[in-house]
């Protein structure tokens, strides 16, 4: 295993003025030292303009962070905003009516309580309630966010979601794609929405994702084959 770091260990960061810290690294307000606060793999990436330092580790509880793609459920509506739950028991986030494409005072979004939606975290500050948006705020145009109709949501660990979303070489979705057509939305809050042509295939996808979370990639084609076979048999 590469460099595994534990809370309180010392980390050596190359002498650079611009350091950006990510998850697992904490700037102690008193001593102004950077220290790791989680158990994870140390990643120091000096390739860009700034050096980014973070720990890679798996967890289940999502903490909103700006720019993340998330899947949420509307829990209540207010005069000018929705309250959206990103994880059970976590503090809900706000989705303003103005954070939709072509939004205006008169043109209100038509979502209801209980609707599932895909969005982007637009503001995240630990002291304040986080906000999400269903529009690309830099262009003001539709960017594929919004209501997710039908399908199922799979709850998986956060690191698995990151792997699926950011690693383009990750074989899982490609392998499923050989078997069936499907739509997918990956939320970094540990939720994957998937919808295939029919219910049986959707169910197969659901089970495959859950199984694959606990298995090495070499097993994936075997799992997918078995799961689809199982459902084909049960359909008879």
């Amino acid at each position: 295993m590469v460099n595994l770091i534990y809370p309180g260990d010392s980390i050596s960061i190359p002498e650079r003025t611009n350091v950006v810290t990510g998850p697992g690294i904490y700037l102690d307000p008193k001593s102004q030292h950077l220290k790791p606060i989680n158990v994870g793999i140390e990643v120091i990436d000096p390739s860009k303009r700034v050096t980014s330092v973070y720990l890679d580790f798996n967890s289940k509880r999502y903490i909103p962070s700006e720019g993340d793609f998330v899947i949420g459920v509307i829990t209540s509506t207010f005069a000018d905003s929705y309250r959206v739950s990103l994880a059970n028991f976590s503090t809900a986030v706000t989705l303003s009516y103005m954070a939709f494409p072509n939004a205006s005072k008169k043109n209100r979004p038509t979502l209801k309580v209980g609707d599932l939606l895909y969005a982007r975290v637009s503001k995240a500050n630990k002291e304040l309630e986080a906000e999400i948006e269903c529009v690309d705020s830099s262009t003001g145009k539709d960017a594929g966010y919004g209501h997710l109709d039908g399908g199922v949501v799979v709850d998986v660990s956060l690191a698995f979601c990151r792997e699926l979303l950011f690693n383009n070489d990750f074989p899982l979705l490609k392998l499923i794609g050989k078997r069936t057509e499907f739509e997918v939305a990956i939320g970094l809050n540990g939720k994957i929405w998937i919808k295939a042509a029919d219910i049986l295939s959707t169910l197969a996808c659901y089970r495959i994702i859950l199984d694959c979370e606990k298995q090495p990639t070499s097993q994936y084609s075997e799992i997918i084959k078995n799961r689809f076979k199982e459902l084909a048999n049960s359909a008879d």
Partner: protein
Amino acid sequence: MADLTDFEAKFQVLTQVDGSARFESFGTSVLCSVTGPIEPKARQELPTQLALEIVVRPSKGVPTTREKLLEDKLRGVLTPVLVRYLYPRQLCQICFQILESGENEQFHSVRELSSCINAAFLALADAGVGLQNCFASCCAAVISNADQDVLINPSAEQLRNASSTHVLAFDSENGREPDSHLLLLESSGDFEEETLNKILDAGEKACLQTVQRLRQALKTKVEQDLVWRT
């Protein structure tokens, strides 16, 4: 002789919480679950930092004031090691279920307390809640008519004869060159300052050894967590 800091750890024993661990060591077994950071009830909320809710459930019967006292001691240990100011207005629930006590519950709670502290470290690390340092705990006993030797992690039988019992918890700032800090010392019985110094020395050593073992256990956990990378 068996190594008395030996233990068995299991992670993610519970599926519906954010982090959980089972810590088992010579007849004492504790299950710890961590949920958080989550939305607190209004009366629990602290404006600048993470609120803690600690619940201890005994191996048999309903919780009594004995468990309340254990909760208070655990709070004393866990509050300083959490990165509290990273999660303002949030709550972290930490529940302990004693599965096997491993001691006479009427008179002692040292084995339970030290196992709870170790289980909490594993479960908090599993949940990904920020920690200032790695920490570990051990208990100790001194038997009166023997040669005042310090027994680390004594058995129920040894506790029965002990003239004094102790629980210690230390954190270690840097795994490589230990710079440790006393988090908790709970002593009761009949002892002297000289014995206390011996206990602090032996306890610190045992705690740091336990920290190393807990880190080993966490290493296998991380490998298991990111299994799809292999």
